[in-house]
């Protein structure tokens, strides 16, 4: 069988090394820009004959028609079908992108979001006419409050970094309200890169602190910089090394003692959902990525959603309108004098919220807890299986993702980038590379709970095979990928001399 696969692959044995390789070559179409296909008069719709009297608009309201390519329906369908075939997604293969939680997006979520009552509802409908939509918003907020152990939730923020901004605006508003605005915020080196940006937008200066030798933060490091000019700390838990911040409670106590607040970056919630409630750890505000933890489409698949959950003291500052429930009736409440105002038009990314709601209801409490258990088990299985093949900078149990480096491969001149490119030839999306920054040559793998043991074993086998290739045939790695539509891209020229217009 192995020989058969090898013989039928383009490029022969060199490109189809072994059975760990789940990818082969195929016929991929070139595709031009739609403008190149445009022909005068070509059209994809037949407009019905005019059966009413012509009534011209005021010329002041009109202008030249927009310039659009003229195409038949088949031109358009083939164009986007071909582009989609160039793509790699969770629906085509394992996507172990660390810190991104690229889990499978169940199709039932799509069915629920497409229900006419949701998909056809206008966001400006009178409350009486959209009670079901408001009920969904209210219930989802309640569920997320329960999962995080917090008092209140807003679903408005558009995605994770926007949620961070909303959370930091709540902290900023809290300090303003209590009479003493502060100037600084503590950010550990294992936090997400967007954290300092969110803090800066609120006018806070970032004070960076280093994690300890075992990759987690020490209470001493926080105590050394925490003072009454510091608004609080932004902490990612589990952190970007995939490690649980074990001193989180002590750290929260240190920050609270000086009047500061604790911002939790919930991007890594997939490791602790149902096991630990951030509210019990002393966190005051946390954002969630529905497009990570709650299985809504991620990346090019659709808009994100970054709700925040807060403790009672921060509830007055949440964006308006709030959905409130009184006697089985849901109302939109705008009268919140301390609110930060709107974070987004209408009610957030509503149809994404429906998908997350569908996920929570289909999984149930036990199912969501199992998600975290399996996500952590899968990551530790990969960590243990590849130990020895790849260098493990922090040798301790990990959470939902594990971090390796290219240290063992350096002698053969093979880098993290080369291995990441080569894994594409085996039919896997590359893991996250060169992040977190505190690890030199990092390879960060997050399998998520949705991959089967068989698929994970294939991935492990692929990586072991690449490690072998690095010793025997490093050139095949340095020029990889070989089976992708485009081979190694010139990243340097792309960054130095970008072509920003087609």
């Amino acid at each position, binding site marked *: 069988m192995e020989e058969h696969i090898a013989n039928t692959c383009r490029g022969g044995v060199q490109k189809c090394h072994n059975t760990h390789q789940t990818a082969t070559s195929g016929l991929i179409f070139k595709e031009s820009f739609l403008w190149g296909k445009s022909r005068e008069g070509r059209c994809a719709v037949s407009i019905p004959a005019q059966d009413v009297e012509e009534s011209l608009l005021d010329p002041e309201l009109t202008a030249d028609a927009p310039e659009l390519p003229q195409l038949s329906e088949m031109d358009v369908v083939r164009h986007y079908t071909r582009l989609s075939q160039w793509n790699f997604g969770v629906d085509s293969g394992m996507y172990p992108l660390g810190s991104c939680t690229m889990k499978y997006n169940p199709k039932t979520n799509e069915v629920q979001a497409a229900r006419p009552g949701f998909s056809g509802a206008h966001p400006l409908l009178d409350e009486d006419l959209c009670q079901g939509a408001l009920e969904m918003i209210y219930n989802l907020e309640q569920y997320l409050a329960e999962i995080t152990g917090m008092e209140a939730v807003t679903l408005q923020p558009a995605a994770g970094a926007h949620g961070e901004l909303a959370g930091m605006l709540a902290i900023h508003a809290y300090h303003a309200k209590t009479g003493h605005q502060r100037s600084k915020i503590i950010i550990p080196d294992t936090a997400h890169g967007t954290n300092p940006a969110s803090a800066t937008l609120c006018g806070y200066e970032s004070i960076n602190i280093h994690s300890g030798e075992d990759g987690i933060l020490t209470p001493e490091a926080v105590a050394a910089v925490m003072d009454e000019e510091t608004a609080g700390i932004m902490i990612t838990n589990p952190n970007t090394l995939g490690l649980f911040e074990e001193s989180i409670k002590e750290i929260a106590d240190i920050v609270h003692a000086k009047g500061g607040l604790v911002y939790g970056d919930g991007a890594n919630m997939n490791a602790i959902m149902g096991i630990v409630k951030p509210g019990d750890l002393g966190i005051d505000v946390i954002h969630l990525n529905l497009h990570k933890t709650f299985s809504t489409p991620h990346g090019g698949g659709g808009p994100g959603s970054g709700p925040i959950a807060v403790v009672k003291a921060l509830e007055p500052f949440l964006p308006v309108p709030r959905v409130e429930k009184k006697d089985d009736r849901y109302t939109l409440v705008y009268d919140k004098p301390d609110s930060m105002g709107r974070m987004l038009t209408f009610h957030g990314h509503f149809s994404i919220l429906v998908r997350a709601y569908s996920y929570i209801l289909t999984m149930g409490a036990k199912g969501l807890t199992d998600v975290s258990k399996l996500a952590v088990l899968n990551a530790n299985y990969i960590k243990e299986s590849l130990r020895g093949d790849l260098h493990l900078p922090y040798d301790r149990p990990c959470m939902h993702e594990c971090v390796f480096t290219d240290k063992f491969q*350096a002698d053969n001149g093979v880098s993290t980038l080369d291995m990441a490119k080569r894994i594409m030839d085996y039919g896997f999306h590359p893991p996250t590379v*060169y992040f977190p*920054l505190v690890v030199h040559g990092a390879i960060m793998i997050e399998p998520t709970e949705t991959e089967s043991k068989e698929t994970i074993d294939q991935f492990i086998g692929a990586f072991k095979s690449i490690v072998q290739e690095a010793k025997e045939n490093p050139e095949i790695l340095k020029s990889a990928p070989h089976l992708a539509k485009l081979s190694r891209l010139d*990243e*340097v020229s792309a*960054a*130095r001399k970008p072509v920003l217009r087609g």
Partner: protein
Amino acid sequence: MKELNELNLPEDLKYSDDHEWARVDGDIVTIGIDDYAQDQLGEVVFVEVPEVGDTFSKGDQFGTVESVKAVSEIYTPVSGEVVEANEALADAPELINNSPYKDGWIVKIKADDLSELDNLKDKASYFQMLKG
């Protein structure tokens, strides 16, 4: 990646622990990143330099160097006012890789107090630090 003994570390410069170099000429200090830093970063694709007239205190971040791998902050080893920034880096960031000590200089600062440079390392002790 270069071996340590392949690094070009001129004798007449002072080096910071963060891999910046400094050259003193009167009260003007020219600052850049050294061969070790450019080699570790890889191909530099963008350099953010400060404005002439900006003032910095020792240890402040005054710019960033972005490579295909990462964005790194650069810190000034001396307090003072920026008198010149290397505008050529905007169109040719590769100067940092090709000529870190000459054409790839980043900024010239009129120093408030040259004695701040005393705790920088000379070539020998910097090289010792890299060896670890």
